[in-house]
């Protein structure tokens, strides 16, 4: 007979939970989100002895309070789904791992303890009597090595056994006389009034009142406000009493007693240490080098630089494939479709848009792979450890440095994976501040724009200028982060208290699954929105079209021009374009036709919605020295920063300008009226700091779980950049008297 059961994996971070999950479910996984929060929900299936197990990998937590989203999610899932709970524990670190176990037992779910990494424990001289532990806690205990799969079958046997039993053994810890008496008193109130007793054990509810667990208190209050009042009164009385006699809170005492219980449990014949538990492990010896005062930071810089190189060098090849594939597609569409809006929509809007989405895929995949290596090996925690002292000053977290590096802290990254890299941050405020400031870095798409402007206005010392801009980007990012943390993203810095897991060799399966999931999520979540916006931007830059009489004027010019050349020259131009050796006459005709086309394109652009927007923005932008041409280019730059170049080219009647070859545009700008060093600098700074490209905006919205922050970054960054650009232009013009 075949049946199906729900199993949840619960455990501390770094306990090998995800490794076990991957081992059990293989590639049969599904990643989503818990409703309303940004916490990931991972689900997978596995078959064992004719039973289908639906396994949910709960977020890794140290506790089951209601103070982090992860813990609330885990707790609610256990209560609502009533699964069999596999509590994976690190055998080499059992004391701390059992803290969560006790809390699982307290909500009376059926727990099976998996003693993971039993081999590592043995190496460290730790002997654990699993049978005795099982006897004392009243739940099955299975020693396993998740990485190799040893013990997994026995673990699944236990999970299937008595699957119809949804109730775990009741465990009743003593928390000292004061609290125990209060708990008894509260239990009576709860049972008499049946406050949430269908959902939670009564004693547990009482405990939550003493721990000041707002989620549970609110629930009970809305169900029965009278008994809530009674319970609150008892809790307040105990709190006051403990404060007066012991100078501490019930919550602290409860935690102390839990650990006290674990200590006496383990030392009672269950665990024996062959060596001093404080002796140095291999991992600690590695750390004496990796986190040492001088060599440590140098190695860290090298590793972060390596991550950057890895991401952007290795992704070049697949990006090349994508690019040739999409240029093949647009070439084919160019040939197959008749001229007109449909063709333009398909070539520029859709193929360009899909290409834009997929163009990031290799970068994102390589970045996540690189970060997964750093994370799974344990090095990421060391980065946070070493960088914390500096980044804390700006209200950030040690791990923020990763996002900054990836998004262009070493000039040439990309803000899209940079925003996503902030997932490694567990602290909410620090993470938000990182996500909002990481687009200030000079990404690969801004670089050609900056290079163009530097070449046009700062011919001497180009590389020094570029280096200075990188420093300015960092400075801007951390200062704005500080500003945000003091105003909009206010709040105490999240406690840093963090585990430094031992160095471990990552498993290839884990790395690949991780990379695949994240990349696919990007395609799925961001892809559709990005395509829609890309079509919207195309529409803005195309419509409304030039009025018929203006089109006619350009057409007349073309006809006049053609009439002045013999038909042999026409044929030559039509056949070859500029690619073949042309006669001087044909070359002349070709050039003249192109310049008419370019003039028409300039007029059409100015007439489009984007163009009108650019023109109307002159009211403000003139204070920064930008005219309508610059404005349109900046509007276009919202699609992707490198589009600034091609749009400027069109606006200056140069036709499409290639980002690889901007010499002619640089010369045009250098000579154009209204441009000078000061305008150049103002524009450089504006480009660095204004609204992120819309792909980044979409990612910010997805990663923060709210469009509010995506829109905020557009508005705030543009305002910030305008302030800088206007200041630079006004002060510069005053100092140098250039007009």
């Amino acid at each position, binding site marked *: 007979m075949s049946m199906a059961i729900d199993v949840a994996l619960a455990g501390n971070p770094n306990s090998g939970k995800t490794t076990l999950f991957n081992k059990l479910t293989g590639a049969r996984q599904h990643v989503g989100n818990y409703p309303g929060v940004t916490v990931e929900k991972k689900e997978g299936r596995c078959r064992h002895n004719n039973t289908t197990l639906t396994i949910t990998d709960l977020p890794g937590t*140290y*506790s089951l*309070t209601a*103070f982090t989203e992860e813990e609330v999610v885990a707790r609610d899932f256990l209560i609502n789904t009533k699964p069999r709970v596999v509590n994976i524990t*690190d055998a*080499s*670190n059992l*004391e*701390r791992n059992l*803290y969560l176990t006790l809390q699982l037992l307290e909500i009376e779910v059926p727990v099976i303890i998996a003693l993971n990494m039993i081999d590592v424990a043995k190496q*460290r001289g*730790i002997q654990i009597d699993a049978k005795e532990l099982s006897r004392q806690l009243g739940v099955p205990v299975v020693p396993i090595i998740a990485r190799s799969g040893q013990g997994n079958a026995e673990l699944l046997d236990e999970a299937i056994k008595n699957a119809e039993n949804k109730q775990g053994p009741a465990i009743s810890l003593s928390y000292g006389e004061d609290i125990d008496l209060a708990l008894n008193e509260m239990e009576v109130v709860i049972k008499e009034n049946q406050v949430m007793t269908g959902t939670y054990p009564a004693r547990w509810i009482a405990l939550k009142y003493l721990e000041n667990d707002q989620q549970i208190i609110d629930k009970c209050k809305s169900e029965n406000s009278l008994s809530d009042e009674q319970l609150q009164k008892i809790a307040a009385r105990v709190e006051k009493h403990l404060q007066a006699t012991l100078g501490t*809170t019930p*919550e*602290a005492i409860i*935690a*102390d007693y839990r*650990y*006290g219980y674990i*200590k006496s449990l383990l030392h009672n014949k269950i665990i024996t240490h062959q060596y001093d*538990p*404080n002796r*140095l492990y291999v*991992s*600690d010896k590695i*750390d*004496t080098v990796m*986190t*040492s*005062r*001088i060599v*440590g*930071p140098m190695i860290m810089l090298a590793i972060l630089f390596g991550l950057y190189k890895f991401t952007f060098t290795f992704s070049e090849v697949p990006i090349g494939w994508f690019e040739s594939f999409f240029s093949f597609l647009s070439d084919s569409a160019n040939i197959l479709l008749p001229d007109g809006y449909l063709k333009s929509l398909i070539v520029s809007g859709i193929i360009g848009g899909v290409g834009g989405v997929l163009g990031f895929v290799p970068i994102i995949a390589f970045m996540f792979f690189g970060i997964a290596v750093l994370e799974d090996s344990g090095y990421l*925690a060391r980065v946070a*450890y*070493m960088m*914390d*002292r*500096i980044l*804390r000053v700006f209200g950030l977290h040690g791990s923020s440095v990763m996002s900054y590096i990836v998004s262009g802290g070493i000039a040439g990254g990309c803000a899209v994976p940079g925003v996503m890299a902030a997932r490694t941050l567990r602290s909410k405020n620090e993470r938000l501040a990182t996500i909002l400031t990481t687009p200030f870095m000079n990404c690969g798409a801004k670089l050609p724009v900056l290079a163009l402007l530097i070449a046009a206005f700062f011919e001497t010392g180009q590389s020094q200028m570029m280096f200075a801009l990188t420093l300015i980007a960092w400075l801007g990012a951390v200062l704005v982060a500080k500003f945000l943390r003091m105003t909009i993203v206010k709040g*105490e810095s*999240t*406690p*840093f*208290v*963090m*585990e*430094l*897991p*031992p160095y471990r060799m990552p498993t290839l399966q884990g790395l690949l699954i991780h990379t695949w999931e994240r990349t696919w999520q990007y395609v799925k979540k961001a892809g559709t929105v990005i395509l829609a916006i890309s079509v919207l931007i195309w529409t803005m830059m195309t419509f409304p079209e030039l009025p018929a009489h203006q089109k006619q004027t350009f057409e007349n010019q073309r006809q006049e021009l053609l009439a002045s050349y013999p038909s042999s020259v026409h044929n030559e131009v039509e056949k070859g374009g500029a690619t073949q050796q042309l006669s001087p006459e044909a070359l002349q005709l070709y050039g003249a036709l192109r310049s008419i086309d370019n003039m028409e394109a300039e007029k059409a652009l100015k007439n489009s919605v984007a163009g009108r927007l650019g023109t109307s923005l002159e009211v403000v932008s003139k204070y920064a020295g930008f005219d309508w041409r610059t404005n349109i280019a900046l509007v276009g730059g919202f699609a992707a920063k490198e589009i600034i170049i091609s749009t400027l080219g069109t606006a200056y009647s140069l036709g499409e300008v290639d980002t690889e070859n901007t010499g002619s545009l640089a010369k045009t700008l250098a000579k154009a009226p209204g441009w000078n060093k000061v305008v150049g600098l103002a524009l450089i700074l504006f480009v660095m700091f204004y609204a992120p490209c819309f792909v980044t905006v979409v990612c910010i919205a997805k990663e923060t779980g709210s469009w509010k922050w995506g829109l905020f970054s557009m508005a705030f960054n543009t305002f910030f950049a305008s302030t800088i650009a206007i200041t630079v232009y006004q002060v510069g013009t005053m100092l140098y008297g250039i007009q």
Partner: protein
Amino acid sequence: MKKISLRTMLKKQSGTISAVKVGGDLGRRIREMGLVPGTTVSVIGRAPLNDPVSLRVMGFNLTLRNSEADYIEVEVN
């Protein structure tokens, strides 16, 4: 035996926690990681800028900021 703040402990020094004098979010985080009275801690090292500090607690390594270590009182020899 004397009681000192965890911040002032030297590298390789160990002791037994005698009190954790903070509540709220930070107190909760500190306690759930096993830093409760009676637990033995030893200082493994400090970050390049002397802060945060890394500790060995119950067989695993833990790091916290000096400003967080201030709340933890340790009994040392």
